[in-house]
């Protein structure tokens, strides 16, 4: 398959780094060259962007906020209010750093693929699955933190004779969360990237990708929002009492 031109990979190859052009062979679990594969390098780019960008725009934090600080304060407090609505003030304060990181990371990672020469790290299933597994583990850690060992009652249903029926159903629905959360994000973003690539090849000179670029902005925002919203719902479900 023809590869798109990804400028970080081009630069790294010019520097003599071993940039892999395919996933490792089946059954190989550790391949250190994969750290130079596009989804990794573009993840590092997004991380660097997210660290440097607020530093540049915000300046010093003051009592009376300036332009940049006002912008970030509006975003952050809006996000915290949104979380507090869904999982209570306490839970929102506790989980805010993680969820806000997910929100910003996924948003920027989705959007970066709209520029030629860049690639969305989230169009690779490994990245979205990693995010999802973090959310999944945190859900159950929160459950044990809030309920102690009684957390297992979440999986058993209301009456004892329903246990053999409810327990497998609950476990299956928890597993389905992993799949649906990761594959939704991956599928949407991969579809956007592939569609853009094909339209660029077919009729790039006639602005054919333009409508899909507009839709891409919309999809990027919606998918980042959906990921965070679903994480909030899962967290709050594991924090509340068993039904």
């Amino acid at each position: 398959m023809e590869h798109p031109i990804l400028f970080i990979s081009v630069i790294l190859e010019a520097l003599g780094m071993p940039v892999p052009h395919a996933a490792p062979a089946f059954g190989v679990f550790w391949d250190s060259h994969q750290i130079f594969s596009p989804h990794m390098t573009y993840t590092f780019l997004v991380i660097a962007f997210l660290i440097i960008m607020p530093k540049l725009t915000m300046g010093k934090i003051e009592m009376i906020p300036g332009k940049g600080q006002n912008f970030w304060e509006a975003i952050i407090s809006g996000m915290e209010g949104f979380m507090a609505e869904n999982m209570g003030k306490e839970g929102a304060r506790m989980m805010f750093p993680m969820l806000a990181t997910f929100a910003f990371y996924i948003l920027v990672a989705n959007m970066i693929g709209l520029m030629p020469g860049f690639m969305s790290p989230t169009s690779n299933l490994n990245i979205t699955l990693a995010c999802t597994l973090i959310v999944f583990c945190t859900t159950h850690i929160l459950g044990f933190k809030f309920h102690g060992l009684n957390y297992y009652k979440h999986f058993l249903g209301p009456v004892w004779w329903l246990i053999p029926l409810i327990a497998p159903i609950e476990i299956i629905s928890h597993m389905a969360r992993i799949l649906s959360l990761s594959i939704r994000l991956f599928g949407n973003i991969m579809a956007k990237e592939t569609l853009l690539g094909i339209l660029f090849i077919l009729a790039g000179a006639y602005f054919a990708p333009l409508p899909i670029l507009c839709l891409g902005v919309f999809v990027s925002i919606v998918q980042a929002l959906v990921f965070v919203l679903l994480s909030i719902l899962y967290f709050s479900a594991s924090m509340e009492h068993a039904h």
Partner: protein
Amino acid sequence: MMADFSTIGLTMAFSIFIGVGFGYYLDNKVFDGATKPWFTLIFLAFGVAAAFLNLYRVATRKDLKDGH
């Protein structure tokens, strides 16, 4: 709200899929085909039940009832 309802379809499909997959694994890998169709069918039923349970939960969520 759109976000919540966009999960229904995917979760339904994946619940059934995981049920069938796990049953198939039990039948063919753990018991080497001795129990051939039964675990697949039982876990298919569990998967379908999980899908509908999820549907029921979305429909009866507390915060949807008070008119959002």
